[in-house]
């Protein structure tokens, strides 16, 4: 789907700077489009606990601003969207392509109730809690999100699901089993294909060959075992016998094998009333051979066949050589499928269907099911519209694949708990597992997996880059132990622990949930440091650390907090006073950069620094939690959207340059492209808000000047 939009200014990034400049320009009467990549606007600021130096609640300041951005009559906000390309148009304006990523949730219907999150089977690290806890694959970003709508994180289709010839949502089944929801897993399998238990024994498990876990660790998730366990589970527990749809149209099937049965099953699902002509044979066909060979337990096959019949499939025993016409006439059938392609040739009638699968050749069950599904489509179409068509290429490519030899039999029974264990190794490589639990739970029927990316062509006179900054990845300083040591956390994680909407409802350390009593805050973790690739000062860390020290001391009155620093950079209005206040509250300030962190036996931490202002020399100090005040890094990805060499310049740290000197803040080297807030370099919130407004002034001047011509 494509739409067009024409605006005065395209603001990229919905953090505090983007929101602020959008509101100001909107108030001036300009049309603004704001594009945010996350599912909610608010940026980093909404995730913070309290903010320096006034210690006001970040959420209380952000939420009204988010609401006024989103509801502004002159500002259109696209969330979960990306600017793909920006090109200069013929008349000087820019042509931008914005992709609205599919959220798979209809925003008009979603009421933000969160029922979907409760049933979702996939857990992901919650990016809005800096990975401290998990969220679900379907999620509302955070309680104050604007818009407060769920989105599904879905990265294509998992290789297991994609590789299944029977078209089973393998990942969904695995995820449901992992969550112990065997009944749902069984019926999810049935949504796609019958023969759950038989497949668990006979399937060659292409899914396991493609499994990402298998590629990573050499041992794939035991999907076939999981499927087999489901078969046994159903054998014991039953369930799911309700016919799917009741229809009027009758369709006959001559044959007793898996193709006939599967087709009957699929047609029943589509609301057709299938009638199987057994012609003196037992239901099961080639699968009965598998039973005889000991590859498939008899009771499992019976259970599978019963499940198919329970969908409303009828059977009738007519003489073997009854002409097809007679079958059609006598039974009031609209059409007929002949399992045996050789017999099907007897008649060329337009109501007779067949498949290329020869009965005397070995075929694998999942392929047979896949063929049955493929046939069911044209049959349904025929029944609905009377159009007979079996396109020549309907089965193209199948023959080759089908020639795989007989699979190994697996007979041993697997218990549900064992299957759960197998399933827990799944990596959720496509994130959403397609288990469809959310669809069933959503009271508003808002989930829609057919959603496609939407491309919006935007014509805009100006662009504001407000893409902010990213945080330094502390694993790039191995001596600080961030990856190795559970109780070394980042400042963003500490802010989440301190926020009232915090993940654990308390300030505690990750390794054992203990309330920390002696906390170290390590400044310049990834700033002012050549070895970190960032020689600049990150400007915000001193102050947010001083803030955290004060908040920690408020939350944990008996805790000791020590800040290790090179210089304390409390330079803004009220900042020095805030620093002195932290000192007066009892925060220890130690001059010395922490060079190395090592664990003790109980996950406490030794930090090493030079004690230059006290006794001198190397000093080792024990703490039970260490917070790394990670620096602010550039986030210049938007440059890629500018095609060719027309991209805005960046400085030596890759922040967007304000190329036109000290009197022209926010102006880049490209006419009509402006930059606001921390996309120009690290900035605190007040400086971002001021800069965003300065940028809005530049944009307004530019627009008014070009208006005049």
């Amino acid at each position, binding site marked *: 789907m494509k739409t067009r939009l024409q605006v005065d200014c395209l603001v990229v990034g919905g953090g505090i700077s983007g929101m602020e400049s959008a509101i100001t320009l909107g108030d001036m009467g300009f049309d603004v489009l704001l594009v945010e990549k996350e599912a909610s606007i608010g940026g980093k600021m909404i995730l913070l606990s309290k903010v320096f130096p006034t210690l006001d609640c970040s959420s209380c300041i952000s939420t009204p601003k988010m609401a006024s951005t989103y509801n502004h009559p002159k500002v259109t906000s696209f969330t979960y969207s990306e600017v793909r390309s920006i090109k200069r148009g013929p008349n000087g304006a820019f042509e931008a392509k914005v992709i609205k990523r599919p959220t798979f949730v209809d925003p008009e219907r979603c009421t933000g109730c*969160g029922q979907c999150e409760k049933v979702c089977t996939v857990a992901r690290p919650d990016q809005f809690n800096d990975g401290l806890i998990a969220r679900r694959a379907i999620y509302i970003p955070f309680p104050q999100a604007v818009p407060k709508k769920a989105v599904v994180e879905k990265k294509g289709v998992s290789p297991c699901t994609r590789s299944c010839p029977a078209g089973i949502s393998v990942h969904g089944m695995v995820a449901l089993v992992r969550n112990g929801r065997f009944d749902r897993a069984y019926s999810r399998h049935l949504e796609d294909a019958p023969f759950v238990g038989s497949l668990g024994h006979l399937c060659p498990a292409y899914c396991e060959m493609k499994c990402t876990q298998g590629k990573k660790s050499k041992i794939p998730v035991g999907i076939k075992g999981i499927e087999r366990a489901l078969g046994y589970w159903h054998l014991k527990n039953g369930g799911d016998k309700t016919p799917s749809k009741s229809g009027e149209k009758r369709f006959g099937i001559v044959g007793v094998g898996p193709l006939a049965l599967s087709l009957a099953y699929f047609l029943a699902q589509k609301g057709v009333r299938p009638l199987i002509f057994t012609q003196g044979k037992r239901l099961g066909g080639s699968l009965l051979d598998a039973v005889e060979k000991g590859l498939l337990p008899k009771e499992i096959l019976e259970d599978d066949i019963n499940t198919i019949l329970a969908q409303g499939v009828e059977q009738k025993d007519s003489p073997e050589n009854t002409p097809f016409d007679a079958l059609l006439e006598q039974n009031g059938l609209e059409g007929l499928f002949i399992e045996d392609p050789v017999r099907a040739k007897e008649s060329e009638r337009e109501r007779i269907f067949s498949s290329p699968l020869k009965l005397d050749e070995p075929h694998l069950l999942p392929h047979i099911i896949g063929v049955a599904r493929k046939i069911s489509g044209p049959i349904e179409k025929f029944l609905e519209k009377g159009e007979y068509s079996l396109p020549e290429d309907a089965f193209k490519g199948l023959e080759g694949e089908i020639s795989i030899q007989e699979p190994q039999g697996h007979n041993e029974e697997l218990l549900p708990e064992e299957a759960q264990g197998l399933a827990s190794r799944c990596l959720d490589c496509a994130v959403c597992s397609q288990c469809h639990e959310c669809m069933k739970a959503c009271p508003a029927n808002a989930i829609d997996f057919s959603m496609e990316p939407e491309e919006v062509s935007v014509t805009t006179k100006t662009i504001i880059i407000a893409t902010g900054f990213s945080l330094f990845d502390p694993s790039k300083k191995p001596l600080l132990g961030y990856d190795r040591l559970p109780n070394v956390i980042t400042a963003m994680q500490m802010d989440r622990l301190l926020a009232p909407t915090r993940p654990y409802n308390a300030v505690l350390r990750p390794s054992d949930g203990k309330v920390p009593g002696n906390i170290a805050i390590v400044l310049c973790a990834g700033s002012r440091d050549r070895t970190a690739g960032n020689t600049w000062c990150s400007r915000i860390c001193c102050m947010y650390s001083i803030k955290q020290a004060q908040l920690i001391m408020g939350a944990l009155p008996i805790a000791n907090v020590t800040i290790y620093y090179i210089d304390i950079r409390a330079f803004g209005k009220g900042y020095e006073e805030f620093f002195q206040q932290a000192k007066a509250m009892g925060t220890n300030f130690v001059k010395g950069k922490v060079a190395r962190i090592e664990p003790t036996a109980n996950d406490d931490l030794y930090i090493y620094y030079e004690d230059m202002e006290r006794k001198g020399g190397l000093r080792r100090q024990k703490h039970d939690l260490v917070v790394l005040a990670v620096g602010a890094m550039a986030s210049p990805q938007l440059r890629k959207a500018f095609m060719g060499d027309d991209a805005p310049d960046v400085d030596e740290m890759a922040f967007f340059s304000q190329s036109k000197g000290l009197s022209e803040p926010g102006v880049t080297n490209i006419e009509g492209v402006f930059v606001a807030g921390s996309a120009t370099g690290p900035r605190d919130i007040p400086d971002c808000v001021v800069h965003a407004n300065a940028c809005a002034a530049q944009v307004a001047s530019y627009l008014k000047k070009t208006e005049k011509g």
Partner: protein
Amino acid sequence: MARILVFSTNNISDPGIDLCGSNHMDYPLGVSVISVPCSSGIDPRWILYALEHGFDGVFVAADGTDCSYLQDCTTRTGKVIREAQELAKGAGLDPRRIKMAAICSVCSEAFQNHMKKFDQALEELRGEGNED
């Protein structure tokens, strides 16, 4: 169950109270909320009116230091509460039936605790009243 009237504010405390709901955190059933722009604009006479007409307690969920209108919001709201308590005393009502606390937009837990405690305190007050 005590009947508690909460005065909240549109931008600061009401979202905090909403968050209780979003998190399915329960508080006593007798709590009902009326939202106004700023806690400094709550009239003590409304508070008295509520007590005289059947509410057991009135709780003002104040903006505190997060108020976007006034830097001295807490002082002003405090004054409203004191005046309401005076009015209550004058009408022969227990001033402890009026309470205030700063509730910010994410203070769901704090609100829940305040409501539970206030509900209990009001029940106790009612008990005391019966003994008289």
